[in-house]
């Protein structure tokens, strides 16, 4: 956390601050400019366990600074009273670059995203945002901070200010400058091992990973910000899709909360992006996550169903199925097909994944162990 505070301070230096190698400037919304105090306030809110029904769950429970902002090695997240959801906690790192938030993109911004986990019954489980506002309006430290950052006090403090502060903090959680960045953009030939270099070649070549996990000429976000059905999760509910999709749309038309529906019902969760758009094309589709610091955030996929990076490579190499011969999902996204990679090539890819760890997170993760 200290390291991150430093990172945040570095960002504030503004003109003198350069983005970490391999990353573009962080997009900052015009109506929520960064400031040192706002970031510090957001940091505090992010780690405050009081904003949950049991007083035991903060944002940072599932997005732990020491675990590259995930809850690795949990398969799915654990909220109040050890209740579990349906999805693997996505990292906050570089979420600032994402065009949508959550695995299914049901939220358009970091500010909006921060509203939902407080209320979800399997996350922080508050009945409404009232208890949060009560604390931030009355706690002297918060009151002072909100006055200083937003010039507001008492009833004038709303969830808008709370989520703006949290989002500001999250926009400082960015990570580049990995061995890959130093090799690819910094032209340091010794930054990668020979296996990692071979893995990179597979990544942009036969493995065709780069088509979704984007690398560009001057930057690499490792995501296309799109949604794909890669045969994870949906495969298990394949036969139920017509019933599930119909029942879900019916419930949605009657006003069911999508955020609650997808996190509390495993089968509904597997509808993926469809739950947001109602489009057939989005059945079983989930957002392409960044791969930065992926070696620190096992297990993998939206449902945490794959334990290791090698398992992930095997899944893709089989063309979106766990083992050759399994039934391929009818709605599988084009582009997912058997890759004919050798075990050595998959090992090289895994080695390359390990070259995507940013030094500050490698250190915090090492310390935590």
């Amino acid at each position, binding site marked *: 956390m200290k390291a991150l505070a430093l990172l945040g301070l570095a960002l504030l230096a503004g003109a003198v601050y350069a983005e970490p190698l391999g990353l573009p400037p962080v997009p900052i919304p015009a109506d929520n400019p960064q400031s040192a105090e706002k970031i510090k306030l957001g940091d505090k809110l992010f780690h405050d366990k009081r904003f949950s029904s049991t007083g035991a769950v903060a944002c940072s429970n599932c997005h732990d600074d020491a675990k590259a902002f995930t809850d690795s090695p949990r398969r799915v997240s654990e909220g109040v009273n050890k209740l579990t959801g349906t999805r693997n906690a996505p990292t906050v790192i570089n979420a600032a670059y994402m065009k949508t938030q959550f695995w299914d993109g049901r939220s358009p911004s970091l500010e909006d995203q921060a509203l939902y986990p407080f209320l979800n019954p399997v996350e922080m489980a508050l009945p409404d945002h009232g208890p949060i506002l009560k604390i931030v309006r009355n706690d002297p430290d918060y009151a002072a901070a909100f006055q200083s950052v937003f010039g507001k006090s008492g009833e004038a403090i709303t969830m808008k200010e709370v989520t703006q502060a949290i989002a500001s903090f999250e926009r400082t959680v960015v990570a580049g400058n990995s061995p890959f960045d130093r090799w690819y953009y910094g032209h340091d030939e010794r930054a990668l091992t020979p296996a990692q270099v071979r893995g990179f070649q597979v990544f942009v070549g036969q493995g065709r990973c780069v088509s979704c996990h984007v690398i560009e000429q001057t930057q690499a976000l490792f995501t296309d910000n799109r949604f794909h059905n890669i045969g994870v999760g949906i495969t298990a509910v394949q036969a139920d899709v017509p019933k599930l999709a119909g029942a879900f749309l019916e419930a949605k038309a009657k006003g069911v909360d999508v955020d609650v529906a997808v996190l509390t019902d495993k089968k509904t969760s597997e509808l993926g992006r469809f739950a947001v758009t109602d489009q057939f*094309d989005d059945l079983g589709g989930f957002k392409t996550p960044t791969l930065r610091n992926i070696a620190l955030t096992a297990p993998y996929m939206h449902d945490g169903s794959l334990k290791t990076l090698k398992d992930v490579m095997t899944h893709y190499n089989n063309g979106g199925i766990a083992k050759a011969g399994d039934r391929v999902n009818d709605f599988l996204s084009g582009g997912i097909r058997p890759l004919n990679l050798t075990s050595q090539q998959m090992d090289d890819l895994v080695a390359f994944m390990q070259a995507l760890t940013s030094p500050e997170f490698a250190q915090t993760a090492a310390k935590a162990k």
Partner: protein
Amino acid sequence: MTTNLSRRAFLKGATALAAAQALPISLVELAFADESQNFTFAYISDSHIQHIRGAKFVRNWDRGLIRAVAETNLLHPKPDFIMFGGDLAQLGSKPELDHGAEMLSALSGKVHHVMGEHDYYLDLGEYWSQLFGPHYYSFDHKGVHFVVLNSILTFDDWTFNRWPTAEQRMAEMAGLDNPNGSPFMVGDKQREWLRQDLEKVDKNTPLVVFSHSPLQKIYKGWNFWTEDAEPVQELLKPFAKVNVLYGHVHQIQYNQIGNISFHSVMATAWPWPYPASYAQAEQYLPKLTVPMNRADPFFERDATGWQFINMANGNVDLRYTLYENRSREVAYNDKTKQPEDSAYQPDSARIPPQTHY
């Protein structure tokens, strides 16, 4: 009066909500006084199932057809029937037609088939006929007269005298840009059958004609063309509402010639560039058509898809389900008397199409 009966019809059952949500179709005027006459059908086309060897087929094309079938089966309420628009196979072979038929057998509902040149030129449609029935025919459904033509015939000399083997004949016609190919036509015999078939039909009956090739002339070099399109159009002229739906072109096209609305349907296999992208030839893409974006070859399903077709006003309203792309709707505009793209047509809503080149 503005009504939205079609949408209301979708909203009847509980499960109907799926369709109402996924298929937001609203119509301005309904020709049928009797609401129960409104109906829909689905249209899948050009799957080009391609045999490699043994039990191996090109996976990419297989996946396209499998997905279209699975999605069509999700429609609620179920479409009254499903059209398959031709080119089920790539080289007309028994394994290809069998494999394609097997995948189509997962469809819940009656399937009507159109002959494509890839189904025909190996054995002149003999095995296809065993599987799917006559090469051309007509049927009536809820007050609409449907005609299915085999529009991919050509000159007898080309078909019977030019090639040493059936396989070579098939291969020569299979290459879209192959100069050894030959223009498609309906032919005298079938036009005479059509004339007689239409004689019995009241001229106010909505007419829907299915062909594989466009019954209009767009670009001869790729056989986006039917040589006797004008005499066929002539036979359709006396009718008040005429719709021609064709496959073959693997892209969205629409047009209005006199009383006839023309629409193409998508392929499930792969998309084709618009003919304008061929720098060395003249072509006539209908001015009405707002082109689709160029496909991204990584996303193998990009710019492929299938159609959901609403017949509520006697004209076809097509909703194109396009993978990796937002769906598009091309519906008949009763004011302008032509099909229009509901989302792309107004300048304000139009997504600037990418250049095909």
